[in-house]
């Protein structure tokens, strides 16, 4: 701290602050949709209301009175409110259906619309788990995934890991403990060739430079190392994200990362909701297991 003592005179000059009114029109709350969906699963969606930027708390009121209609070209799917603004479909999504459109009507908050398209599940050719000694810090675990990219389509990949720890407790009962989902970051030597030009997030991978080709992606795994007789299983989900999901995730993460940086231009988060905010986007995924 002493080193920065010389900054004191400048800081005193900066200390002139004044609460001011900015001519921002009053904000009318809009419906916010939070829904990433995938095939072979039920569709889950959370609806809430946006807040005025000067609302003191970060509590977003749930929308509980909405009628949600999903159209996938076949039969309409209905989502039912299960509490706190969360809605859920009573059927799993048909893996053969790719396009979904959404219409939400709320008596108090109007109508919003959106649509998204699912991609084919990624083709995983092979995968391997590599454990390398890394000096005094123990072992480093890495996973290599070889994929065959689908030609002519913009693909966006993301690898999600859920680690399962299996151990026998003192009571003789076998316990299965699951970690929170972890999004892994690509570690290929030439990162730009992997994640794609203009992308700054190594957990989101564009296929721009390997469209239609086979590619091996490498990821480090940061997981809690249990000692003793604990068995560890790695459940991997290689996702192929829709472009909407990619744009939302990359811009939302960038906004988070640069928040509070006075020199960075504010980041506008991608939004595909007509008449509201948020995201309605699909992804498909391929599961594989490493032990």
């Amino acid at each position, binding site marked *: 701290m*002493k*080193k*920065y*003592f*010389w900054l004191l*005179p400048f800081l005193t000059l*900066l200390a*002139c*602050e*004044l*609460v*001011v*009114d*900015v*001519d*921002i*029109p009053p*904000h009318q709350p*809009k419906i916010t*949709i*939070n*829904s*990433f969906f995938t095939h072979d699963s039920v569709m*889950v969606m*959370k609806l*809430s*209301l*946006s*807040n*005025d*930027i*000067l*609302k*003191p708390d*970060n509590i*977003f009121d749930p929308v509980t009175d909405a009628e949600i209609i999903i159209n996938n070209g076949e039969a309409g799917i209905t989502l039912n409110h299960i509490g706190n603004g*969360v809605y859920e479909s009573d059927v799993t999504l048909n893996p053969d259906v790719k396009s979904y459109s959404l219409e939400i009507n709320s008596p108090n908050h109007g109508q919003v619309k959106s649509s998204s398209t699912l991609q084919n599940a990624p083709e995983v050719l092979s995968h391997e788990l590599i454990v390398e000694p890394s000096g005094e810090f123990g072992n480093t675990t890495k996973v290599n995934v070889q994929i065959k990219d689908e030609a002519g389509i913009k693909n966006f990949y993301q690898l*999600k890991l859920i680690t399962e720890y299996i151990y026998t407790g003192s009571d003789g009962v076998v316990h299965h403990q699951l970690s929170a*989902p972890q999004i892994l970051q690509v570690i290929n030597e030439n990162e*730009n060739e992997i994640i794609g*030009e203009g992308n*700054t997030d190594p957990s989101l991978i564009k296929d721009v430079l390997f469209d239609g080709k086979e590619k091996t992606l490498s990821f480090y795994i940061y997981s809690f190392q249990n000692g003793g007789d604990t068995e560890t299983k790695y459940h991997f989900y290689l996702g192929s994200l829709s472009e909407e999901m990619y744009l*939302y995730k990359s*811009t*939302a993460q*960038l*906004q*988070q*990362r640069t928040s509070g*940086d006075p*020199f*960075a*231009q*504010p*980041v*506008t*988060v991608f*939004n595909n909701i007509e008449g509201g*905010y948020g*995201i309605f986007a699909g992804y498909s995924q391929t599961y594989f297991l490493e032990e």
Partner: protein
Amino acid sequence: MKYLTSILLAIPLFAYAQKSTISGTIKDANSGEYLIGASIYNTTSSQGTTANTYGFFSLTLNHDSVSLRVSYVGFEPSVLKFYLRQDTVLNITLMGGTHLQEIEINATAEDNIHESTQMSSVDIPISHIKALPAFMGETDLIKVLQLLPGVQSGAEGSSGLYVRGGGPDQNLILLDGVPVYNAAHLFGFFSVFNTDAINHVELIKGGFPARYGGRLSSVVDISMKEGNTKKIQGEGSIGLIASRLTVEGPVNDKTSFIVSARRTYIDILARPLIKAASKGDAVAGYFFYDLNTKINHKINDRNKIYLSAYMGDDKAYARSEYKDTFGNDSYSEKNEAGIKWGNVTTALRWNKVITNKLFGNLTATYSRYRFSVFSETESDDFVGGVRRKEYVTGAYISAIRDHALKLDFDYIPSPNHYIKFGTQLINHRFSPGVFSYRDTEQRDTTFGATILNAQELYAYLEDDFLITDKLKVNAGIHASAFFVNGKTYHSFQPRISGRYLLTPLVSIKASYATMAQYIHLLTNSGIGLPTDLWVPATEKVRPEQSSISALGIAYTHKKMYEFSVEGFYKEMDGLIEYKDGASFIDIEEDWQEKVEIGKGESYGAEVFLQKKTGRVSGWIGYTLSWTNRTFENINEGKTFPYRYDRRHDLKITAAYNISKKKDLSLTWVYGTGNAVTLPNASYEGANENPQWFWNSDVKQYDGRNNYRMRNYHRLDLSYTITKVTKFGERSWSFGIYNAYSRRNPFYLDIVSKHNYQTGTQTKKFVQYSLFPIIPSIAYRFKF
């Protein structure tokens, strides 16, 4: 038929009318300095010309009686009458005064704004620059240019120039013909130019003559003094944060010099406090200095050489030292970390009067701007009879370095033509963000952005010619090429400007110019931080281009007031901006991956009323303008206002010479608030499982630069008392910056405040301001 016969009879007379050329130089009688732009005018034939940057003029007239009136603002005109029979060399001197007196209204017609073909141009007498109020007592050339219509300062206190919607990188700032890349000291609060060392300054905002190129928005052409050729003299000042001293004089009858230095003493004043606070372990500080030197030598009447140099650095640092002993063992360590930046420019110039109509100028120049963040650790241990010395240094360096060779000619075949032509070759070397690491064992590791070399070549031709008594045009072409990494860019830039006299005192003016810029400035802040990176056009990032058109009216009233109204429209292409969230210090990523390329436009009108002479001098400038940017991947591709889009901009300056001993001056500025991007809503963020209890919120921005800060206005005052003693002139200058302590906006933020008594929380927009009322005092002297 009668008329035709007359014309036919007149042709041989015209063809064989004998002419001779009057050439020479115009100087200040006191100092021997050349009077750049001084006017020489034959009242008999109503023909005239002006002295060029090196004081040279050439006027070819018929053999006849001539009555030459020589004039320059701030000097008493001189009249010479003789019969011109042969080529004549005239080296003229004019007597100047300490104040701008009424007598100066006798300036010739050529001085007047409505006569010149050049539009969108202002030259300000250095004496007026020095007379205006100065921030913390430091006279600042750039801050005075910011007071002109069409020019903005950007953020509060900044010494950036934003000319007609252009960025701070789009100004060609020439110091004795050498580009200066970063003209800012102290994070932009002061400019690098020491006014004591400056002879002349001109700002051109549009209608660029063909001799200038390489930047889109403006030219600031600054000429250093050459040094008094008559006697040794000096001047200086002692201010609150800096002092300066200039000494100039003759070495012998052919050589003169000038040395001018300035240094801040913030670090010296703060050092005892910091040492006390750190109990003697640490030293920290900030300072800047600059040094201008020039030496010129007259080889003979036709040949002169000049060597001029500028050097300036800013440095903010922290040092600590540790020493200890245990028995026979000793340990010591020194640490230093900081940030430093600075420019070096050098010009070696050879002037040659080739004939009395042709003037040549060969110049070799060097310019370097470098910025670095550094950290150094040195240890020297003596343990168990073994000495071990180690060091570790790391630095993040960004630099641009130019070597250039330039050849210019002025050819004045007749009073109706003033032809300029020339060429320049520049070798640029860019190091845009290199990280350098050295230690005792592994030396010289460098990584980060690639060092790039590029060559820029241009040639130009222009003629300022009188077509009829009323119509005068300056037309030219500037052709340039840029070679980088095997890629070649080229550009042909037509330039034309002209005036048509509606009455003897009123003219209508028009101009059109296209410009190309092969180097870019990557800037996060837009406030002229030293961290801004200069980078070249590359295969991925194309050059910037612009076209600017202007139409206006100029009027001179009683040869004392100049009034102009101009409308302008400027289009810019190839502009760069950091992508959302990109940062300059992200060394793992190539700068080319961090930028977006887009377009811009600016249009509006400027009104300028200036009074250069008399006991009250000054100007009123008003600008009404719109400035926009469009980038495919910013703001969803929609056009948005530029950060420094300013709808209304009013500036008033006045200097009042109360008596020989007392001067009063003021400036008042008013401007629409800067555009700013603010969120208007927030909403819940999404993730794959919406039932999770934690979702971060997302801020919703309806558009880039969608709101306005509060309007900006400020009054500065200055009062100077001067006394002439037998040792020279002494003056005390008292200044007040922001006299009514207006809290002008610097930036806006949303701040949450918790009231512990009521348990409630509120969120408010809070505006931060930089400078409240700041008084200053400076002591100035001349000897």
